[in-house]
């Protein structure tokens, strides 16, 4: 319905602007209805301006900038409409070290509100997580699972030893 859509749109927009600025440590963004007079048919334009730059086509953004922008939008939806469970598959792959750190700060915060799982090859992401599922192929072609509770000391980065649960 028109009213519900506009309410949701406004809430997502505000959350998106806040989260974008957190992930980019600056910059600004906007969501704009292509047909504001027609909320049931309108499209939604995304204007993203990383810190220090001018707003341009999303297509001109770098791989990492696009990943971070999409992440801000996703988390904006999760803010407005929480899900009990979030599963992200290698979304940290294009991010540099500084952006991974800001991404993980946001992931840690959201993981206090719901169940959060990330598939990753990134050591920083692994260190941010108190629980690990290790997937291996002891028999070729057949997956096996080992789960770990990472000792609290190693989350501070002192050791990578894990406790098999």
């Amino acid at each position, binding site marked *: 319905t028109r009213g*519900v*859509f506009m*309410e*949701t*749109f406004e809430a*997502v927009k505000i959350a998106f602007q806040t989260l974008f600025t957190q992930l980019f440590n600056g910059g600004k963004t906007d969501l704009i209805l*292509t047909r504001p007079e027609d909320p049931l*048919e*309108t*499209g*939604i334009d*995304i204007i993203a301006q990383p810190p220090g730059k001018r707003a341009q086509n*999303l297509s001109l953004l770098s791989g990492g900038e696009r*990943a971070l*922008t*999409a*992440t801000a*939008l*996703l988390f904006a*939806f*999760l803010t*407005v*409409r*929480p*899900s*009990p*469970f*979030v*599963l*992200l*598959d*290698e979304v940290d792959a294009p991010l540099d070290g500084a952006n991974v750190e800001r991404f993980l700060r946001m*992931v*840690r915060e959201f*993981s206090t509100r719901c*169940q*959060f*799982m*990330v*598939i*990753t090859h990134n050591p920083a992401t*692994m260190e*941010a*997580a*108190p*629980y*690990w*599922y*290790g*997937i*291996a*192929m002891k*028999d*070729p*072609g*057949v*997956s*096996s*699972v080992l*789960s770990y509770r990472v000792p609290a000391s190693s989350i501070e980065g002192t050791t990578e030893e894990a406790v098999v649960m």
Partner: protein
Amino acid sequence: MQLKKLQMSGFKTFADRTEIEFGDGLTAIVGPNGSGKSNIVDALLWVLGEQNPRMLRGDTAQDVIFAGSQKRKPLGMSEVKLTLDNADGTLPIQFTEVVITRRIYRSGDTQYLLNGAACRLKDITALFMDTGMGRGAYSVVGQNEMDSVLSAKPEDRRELFEEAA
């Protein structure tokens, strides 16, 4: 509503019965390329009712059944079971624990079970309609999917807003 565990048997590389428990907070799923991490994502989407084999990287429905390895024969059936804690009544069903089972055989025959009782696919998808975990939802982001939020046409983006509204 919380996810409690995911059990896979004969699903893609999870030839042997395997169980994954969902804890609170942040879990990292780690392991070498091709070990089966994204297959876990596929298993979750499949048990929640995904009907399009392409969304699970396959051509046919039976592509999710363990196809064998160098040392093992193919299996005849794939089964995934998802157990959820429904103590808060989020799911519109009179059970505090909800178990969803989906099976497929080489013939293509499929079974769906809700707490052990045979049901139809739409009984399962109906359960998740307003939870943020339904079709087109934003709580599961597959490998290389993050970017498509941005590359979608402005009109296509409204789907995400409608899901949140």
